């Protein structure tokens, strides 16, 4: 700590240069915070599913294709299957496309397979008894100030009604809550009755988007999946059954390898940062060669000088990087508040900070290595003589 002022004053010897360097570091880590937030959101989507004993059955050709509802009794009859439900993507828009949230038509037993979402028995009953009933997550209800009894109009983007209209109106009969507060992002969905949807839609009747089934024992998952897919072999609706976790990973994968994309962008950004900051540090140390020689003259060892320059470099990156990550946190919170799950982002929490600080220290050490070595190896008499 006693060297901090020495390091701090050395860092701000050229204020303008240091401020511009700090800004470039800040920008790089702001970008890192935002991109890592997106990457984490996608990674969590693929891995954070609670229902490890749930299987998803979709069309083998594409999960956008439907499956016949007639498969339901045959799936229910398979050994090892405890419960089966089904759903269909609706893709309706509430008032404005920027208000995007997922909305699906689901069977009335849908919530039986998702115990991690809490819905009261009265609301479940109401959902089953109300033809136009809808259930939304608490976060979504809060965002749009919905309360039970409200009517929620959605504009269809895929499924018009038989009368040709695109306007579907639902009655809000239930609000579910995620049992785990860390999974509040799962409260941004709307579900409504599949029966009403199937009766009213203009096409695709008698088909479902996908089946969700719970197995009696997770060890039977592979066996059940094979048996289920065998039901449709050589038909026009061959199925692909996989764990919900694998399905989510595949769903996320349709956007491309987010980790690779984020890694490539950040790699380019940090490479540029290292060149830029490395040049700045080299220049700063070059200008201070006589001062470093004075420090060595009065008794600072080679390693002390090496440490001082490295500490200055790491401090510079930590300072700019920390401000960048704080700003990233503010921006992510603002984006999440404004658009909800339309842009998948996790909060800039401990994990992102830990990765960020690790990167800052690493970059600081890389950037400071050559100038520090130069400072360490300078010969006092040559440096004092200006050679």
């Amino acid at each position, binding site marked *: 700590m006693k060297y901090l002022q020495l390091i701090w004053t050395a860092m701000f010897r050229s204020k303008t240069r240091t401020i511009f360097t700090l800004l470039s570091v800040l920008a790089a880590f702001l970008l890192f915070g935002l991109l890592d937030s997106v990457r984490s959101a996608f990674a969590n989507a693929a891995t954070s599913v609670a229902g490890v004993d749930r299987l998803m059955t979709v069309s083998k050709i594409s999960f956008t294709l439907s499956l016949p509802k007639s498969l339901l009794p045959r799936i229910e009859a398979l050994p090892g299957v405890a419960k089966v439900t089904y759903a269909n993507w609706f893709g309706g828009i509430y008032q404005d496309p920027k208000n995007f949230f997922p909305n699906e038509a689901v069977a009335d037993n849908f919530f039986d397979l998702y115990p991690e979402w809490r819905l009261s028995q009265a609301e479940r009953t109401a959902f089953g008894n109300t033809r136009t009933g809808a259930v939304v997550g608490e976060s979504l209800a809060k965002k749009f100030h919905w309360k039970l009894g409200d009517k929620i109009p959605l504009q269809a983007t895929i499924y018009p009604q038989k009368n040709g209209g695109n306007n579907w109106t639902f009655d809000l009969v239930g609000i579910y809550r995620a049992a785990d507060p860390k999974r509040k992002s799962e409260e941004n969905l709307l579900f409504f009755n599949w029966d009403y949807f199937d009766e009213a839609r203009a096409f695709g009747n008698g088909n479902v988007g996908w089946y969700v089934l719970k197995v009696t024992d997770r060890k039977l998952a592979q066996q059940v999946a094979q048996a289920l897919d065998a039901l449709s072999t050589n038909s026009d609706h061959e199925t692909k059954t996989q764990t919900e976790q694998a399905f989510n990973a595949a769903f996320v994968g349709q956007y491309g390898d987010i980790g690779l994309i984020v890694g490539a962008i950040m790699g380019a950004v940090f490479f540029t940062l290292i060149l830029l900051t490395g040049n700045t540090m080299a220049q700063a140390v070059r200008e201070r060669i006589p001062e470093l020689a004075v420090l060595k003259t*009065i*008794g600072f060892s080679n390693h002390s000088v090496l440490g001082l320059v490295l500490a200055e470099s790491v401090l510079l990156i930590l300072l700019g990087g920390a401000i960048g990550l704080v700003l990233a946190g503010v921006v992510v919170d603002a984006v999440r508040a404004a658009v909800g799950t339309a842009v998948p982002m996790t909060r800039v929490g401990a994990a992102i900070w830990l990765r960020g600080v690790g990167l800052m220290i690493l970059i600081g050490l890389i950037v400071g290595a050559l100038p520090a070595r130069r400072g360490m190896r300078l010969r006092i008499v040559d440096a004092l003589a200006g050679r």
Partner: protein
Amino acid sequence: MSALVEIRSLSKIYERGKQRIEVLHHVQLDIEQGDFMALMGPSGSGKTTLLNLIGGLDSPTDGSITVGGQRIDRLSEGTLAKWRASNVGFVFQFYNLLPMLSARKNVELPLLLTRLSAAQRKRNAAVALELVGLTDRAAHKPGELSGGQQQRVAIARAIVSDPTLLVCDEPTGDLDRQSAVDVLTLLQQLNRDHGKTIIMVTHDPKAAEYARHTLQLDKGSLVEQTEQAPA
């Protein structure tokens, strides 16, 4: 008085490409504890090289340097740095203060290498600044001080860790006459009243008059030693 600095057969050769330049040639010299010695001689005679060797800033090509009973020419870089920190104070022609630090912080620099607390460092720096008459300038940065004042801060920095030996390379070379007199008087006072052994390189015969002895170097060899009553 006993010899604080004992130099035996000291040589220094610089190699510049294929050229070998012998800057010091078998120098033999004793400097007594409590002496104030002026090193004089024409440019290139080896004064600064000799001073750097005595101060442990450079290593000899041949011969030995013993300071306070310690063979400093045999010390490793790290040990030599520690030795400098506790045994030698340096004063340069161009002061060599750190421009971003206040006078007090500049004086405190050598104390960062000690185990003293921040409060003790501050106290010791204040004492050193008082000794050079700059208490009221402690918070000023070097750029806000005159040349003479900056050199006095440099002297305070040199004495703050209470070294036995002060090595001064042209300490008045960048100063006007009055400031030079002030600095030389201060050095004389440190020698006389505080027992500091001082070795000073100078071109200026008037500055040399403040020393107890004057050594003349020419072409890397000692040519003359005179004793004088200090000015």
